[in-house]
């Protein structure tokens, strides 16, 4: 197990190192000089040069890369070009909205998918199964930002149950939660559809195993065998999918935050892109990649803990 963790940690570090090089290189080739962008069209060349110097843009590339990575390792992400505040503070502010949004979406998707998958598996081949499977096919095909627009149309404009967009801040937790409900629902639906399908096929696979037959032969009802024995074993692939979905939730949140004008990480990236605030773009993308790689690592680890067969090399 220790060897497995060590091996995975080395892969994790290598992934992060490579990701940082790719992101840094991409940002470097971006046309447009941040200094002249910040100062506007009429800035004197000397002023631009002085600002470039101040921002450290005149240093050699490898040195700037090392400074960037070194800073991040110490929690210093540099100063935003446009807001003139530490990027770490900007990100922390936005995370207060984006992280709860992703978590609520994850919880919603699980809450929708678990009963749907269980129900479909218990009714395999019958009308209820076909109904759930049809609904999940539809759920996978619906773009989440369009679903978000439909939710706004019905729940915000027609029935006025939830706000159509914006975020009031956490000082009023109830209002904040109401503002996040529709975005979380829009994010959760496609993920719930995928999750329900995975759970159903995992359950059906498990239900065919000998130990389930034994449990049934001992007199356990179908439902009891399903929830007491099959569900536990079927949860292993489901957990892996949940870990993978985290990355989709993060990426999806970028678009959904723009639909609802929610000032989270996604809006921050877009604003930074249009304002050529490259240091913010660079850092936020790196943080997102780190989050995804770290979650994948933890999922793999949890998986290996549950299933000893995975610790051996393939």
């Amino acid at each position, binding site marked *: 197990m220790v060897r497995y963790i060590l091996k995975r940690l080395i892969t994790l570090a290598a992934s992060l190192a490579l990701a940082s090089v790719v992101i840094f290189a991409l940002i470097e080739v971006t046309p447009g000089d941040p200094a002249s962008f910040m100062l506007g069209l009429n800035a004197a060349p000397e002023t631009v040069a002085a600002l470039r110097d101040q921002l450290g843009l005149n240093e050699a590339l490898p040195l700037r890369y090392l400074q960037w990575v070194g800073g991040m390792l110490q929690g210093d992400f540099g100063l935003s070009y446009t807001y003139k505040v530490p990027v770490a503070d900007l990100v922390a502010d936005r995370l207060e909205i984006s992280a709860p949004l992703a978590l609520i979406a994850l919880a919603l998707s699980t809450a929708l998918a678990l009963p749907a998958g269980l129900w479909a598996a218990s009714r395999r*081949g019958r009308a209820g199964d076909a109904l759930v499977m049809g609904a999940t096919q539809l759920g996978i*095909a619906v773009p989440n930002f369009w679903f978000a627009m439909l939710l706004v149309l019905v729940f915000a404009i027609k029935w006025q149950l939830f706000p159509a967009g914006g975020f009031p801040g956490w000082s009023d937790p109830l209002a904040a939660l109401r503002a996040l409900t529709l975005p979380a629902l829009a994010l959760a639906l496609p993920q719930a559809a995928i999750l329900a399908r995975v759970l159903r096929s995992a359950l059906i696979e498990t239900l065919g195993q000998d130990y389930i037959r034994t449990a049934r032969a001992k007199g356990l009802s179908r439902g009891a065998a399903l929830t007491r024995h099959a569900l536990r074993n079927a949860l292993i692939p489901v957990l892996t999918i949940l870990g993978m979905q985290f990355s989709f939730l993060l990426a999806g949140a970028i678009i959904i935050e723009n639909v609802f004008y929610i000032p989270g990480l996604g809006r921050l990236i877009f604003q930074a892109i249009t304002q050529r605030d490259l240091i913010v773009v660079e850092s936020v993308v790196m943080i997102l*990649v780190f989050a995804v790689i770290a979650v994948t690592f933890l999922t793999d680890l949890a998986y290996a803990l549950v299933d000893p067969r995975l610790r051996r090399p393939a």
Partner: protein
Amino acid sequence: MKPALALGAVLSGAALAAAVLSLVWTPYDITQLAIAQKLQPPSLAHWAGTDHFGRDIASMLMAGARTSLAVALVAVGIGMGVGVPLGLSAAALRGSWVDEAIMRGNDLIFAFPSLVIAILITAVFGPSATNAIIAIGIFNIPVFARVSRAGALSLWTLDYIRAARVAGKGRARISAEHILPNIANLLIVQGTIQFSLGILAEAGLSYVGLGAQPPTASWGRMLAEAQTMVTLAPHVALAPGLAIVATVLGLNLLGDGLRDALDPRLRGRMA
């Protein structure tokens, strides 16, 4: 043919037909603005209504189908064109450093949140349909590499491949002549799935303004433009969304149906 497969074929066929037809004919010219006709509900003359510039939405949907399908198709082409040779080489040289390097490279691309990187690429190189294709295509490469490697590995152990080896054929030639035709089914099924994911990705990128640019019609951009008018004229937001759902659903059903039809072991089972 099973009903789901038939429905999938009809829906994907309709999108394809609309895209091809739009090359030579659309009911109205979508470059012509007719402000007097703006935001009309569906009628006989405009059966999907008109948008805020008075353009015929049905015509724009047809032209948008062309953009969506073209972007997704080329992205699948990139994924297959690069990924399949990589996967075949990895399988042919199983256990060597080449195999290791290809598979670890794959894992790395998989580790990236694809949409975030697509956004980064289009942000850096400028928003355009071409950059959207590249961004989506890159993430198709590891998918096809993995599928073709897995498919090829099981074939390499079979007797007829060994016979070909004994007959003196090289690994590259065996891969091209014997392995590739036998994993074609797998690739077709995976291609259909990636195609539908590509359409969703293109719509998402265009929606946030990083995909196809005006005057190119695109379903994602139509939705972005519709967003501010959704209260005035809900039909403007409904039509492009339904077009995306129908096409993606059609391709997914087609992919599932083809998988069952092409794999005799699954025949008669409900997958």
